[in-house]
């Protein structure tokens, strides 16, 4: 093992959904290891994440994932500076395995333990790669479990401006893909199909585009897609999958761009930051890039491996909390609905 005495080394554990993940970062930004053991194969036959199966897999995978994170980073536990863990939001049983592991590691090593919010982690994935990024900015976090518009004033200071009132973006992708029998997870499949499709082919509703708030709703869009497909089937027509997927995606993205821009203008910021698994969607990235360029705003998004759930982003968020002296105690608990607040 190489001694890295001069460096601040953070080990983070993330188990909020179906990825068992551990990572070690140095100085809050250099990724030494970023291990993600995906359980997607175990959940595929159910068409979504089964909480009990996710929790069972976490107990089996957590030890080897932490061991691999240390070994790839060539760091021994005794060389670490602090430990970070996701406290929520997420699946109760899944979060509990991560926190039990993190507390146990903290107790065994005497290292300080820091708790972070999973959504905060998705935002901080950007700080790992864009060293020039500084708050304040508007962040859109879009994933399988979340669609949130957040104003981040400074490190650790957030204001949740709006969120989805029903389905998260990634959830809508999964459900549409499931309905069309395209496979699971739906996001990458629909993204691929869309590349050959025309986003203006079918006019799907842009829910809540004109509302004054910053909330989103996707259930109406989902029903519209479903009705459209049912009508085509009844008429015996072929379903134009690429056009359908591209139009469905465009309906989601249009509203997201519109509300993100309006929030940025209202808050007087010139930076927009994307995060979460759906931020890996190629059309979403491209459309945001074009629209932000038009109005002269800077856009940041993580590279694709850092968009999906990982522990490096949790380590990064924890690093900034560690700098402020924040710690959690050994009687801490998880919160499946942990609010993103503070400031």
């Amino acid at each position, binding site marked *: 093992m190489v001694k890295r005495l001069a460096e601040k080394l953070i080990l983070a554990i993330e188990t909020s959904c179906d990825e068992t993940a551990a990572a070690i970062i140095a100085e809050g930004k250099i990724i030494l290891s970023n291990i993600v053991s995906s359980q997607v194969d175990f959940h595929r036959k159910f068409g979504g994440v089964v909480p009990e199966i996710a929790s069972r897999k976490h107990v089996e995978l957590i030890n080897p994932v932490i061991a691999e994170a240390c070994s790839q980073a060539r760091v021994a536990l005794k060389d670490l500076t602090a430990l970070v863990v996701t406290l929520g939001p997420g699946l109760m*049983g899944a979060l509990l395995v991560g926190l039990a592991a993190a507390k146990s590691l903290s107790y065994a090593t005497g290292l300080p333990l820091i708790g972070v919010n999973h959504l905060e982690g998705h935002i901080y994935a950007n700080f790992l790669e864009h060293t020039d990024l500084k708050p304040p900015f508007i962040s859109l976090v879009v994933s399988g479990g979340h669609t949130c518009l957040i104003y981040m004033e400074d490190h650790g200071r957030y204001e949740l401006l709006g969120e989805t009132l029903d389905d998260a973006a990634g959830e809508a992708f999964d459900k549409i893909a499931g309905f069309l029998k395209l496979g699971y997870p739906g996001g990458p499949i629909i993204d691929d199909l869309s590349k050959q499709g025309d986003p203006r082919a079918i006019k799907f509703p842009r829910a809540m585009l004109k509302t004054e708030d910053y909330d989103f709703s996707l259930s109406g869009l989902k029903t519209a897609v479903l009705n459209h497909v049912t009508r085509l089937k009844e008429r015996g027509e072929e379903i134009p999958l690429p056009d359908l997927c591209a139009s469905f995606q465009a309906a989601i993205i249009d509203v997201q761009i519109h509300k993100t821009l309006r929030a940025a203008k209202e808050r007087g910021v010139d930076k927009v930051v994307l995060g979460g698994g759906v931020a890996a969607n190629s059309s979403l990235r491209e459309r945001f890039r074009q629209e932000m360029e038009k109005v002269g705003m800077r856009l940041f998004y993580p590279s694709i491996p850092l968009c999906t759930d990982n522990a490096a982003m949790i380590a990064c968020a924890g690093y900034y909390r560690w700098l402020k002296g924040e710690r959690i105690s050994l009687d801490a608990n998880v919160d499946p609905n942990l609010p993103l607040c503070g400031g």
Partner: protein
Amino acid sequence: MLALAFDTATDACTVAIGTEDKLYGEFTMYAPRAHMERLIPMVDYLLKQSDFSIGDIRGLTVGLGPGSFTGVRIGVATAKILAQALNLPLVGISTLDCLAYPFTFGEELVCVVLDAKRGEVYSAIYRCLGGKFDLITPYQVMPPRDLCSKLKEYKQRVILVGDALYPYGDLLKNSLGSSVDFAPPWLWFPKASNLIALAMDKLLGGEGKEIFQVVPIYVRLSEAEGKVGRAPTCRGRAGPPNGRAGREGKFFPWKPLKSPG
């Protein structure tokens, strides 16, 4: 060998420190759904009060269940990471064995019954003789009425013990009558000292090195695996379907795509 033991598979949170010939301390609390908050602070308190530190521990043992899925995972994950971080051997022991242990010095049948919720009990039957016991059934889950039928087949006095006697004690007593005796209620929850007693020979014999292989005993499949096809999944923003630890097994109902709107 100084060993640390704990079990979180039931509503009790129990921690003990001891060697092959002495129990240094034991701390058991009725703490439903509070294992995450209590476990490490209880370990820490017990170590401090008995003038040990975590670095003095040379072996670990943990209750593997069956019991609350969530509860047992807290104990098992904690034990596995402690073992990895401190490079200690870890021996897993069934929570049912742990509950049967105090009766091994009799000459009776002992049936351990734990509340498995959803109208069922986890159970195992042991034949005790002079300080040893034989497990004569698998660890299993069944409705209490089915257990009554099984126990009647033995035509022998049976001692019943375990937290399922709270909800199903009357039912079992009415069905089995004088052929069963209930253990006193303060033995109905596991005590970690029994884990040390059961694991010590294995720890001294060099077992417990394969810590990655230690997994809970669930007995039940997850509900989704039990009925593949009607897939209950959860990926919504509302967080978990069941909300609280200890109320496992209830999944988000699969929302059909035809939502209103």
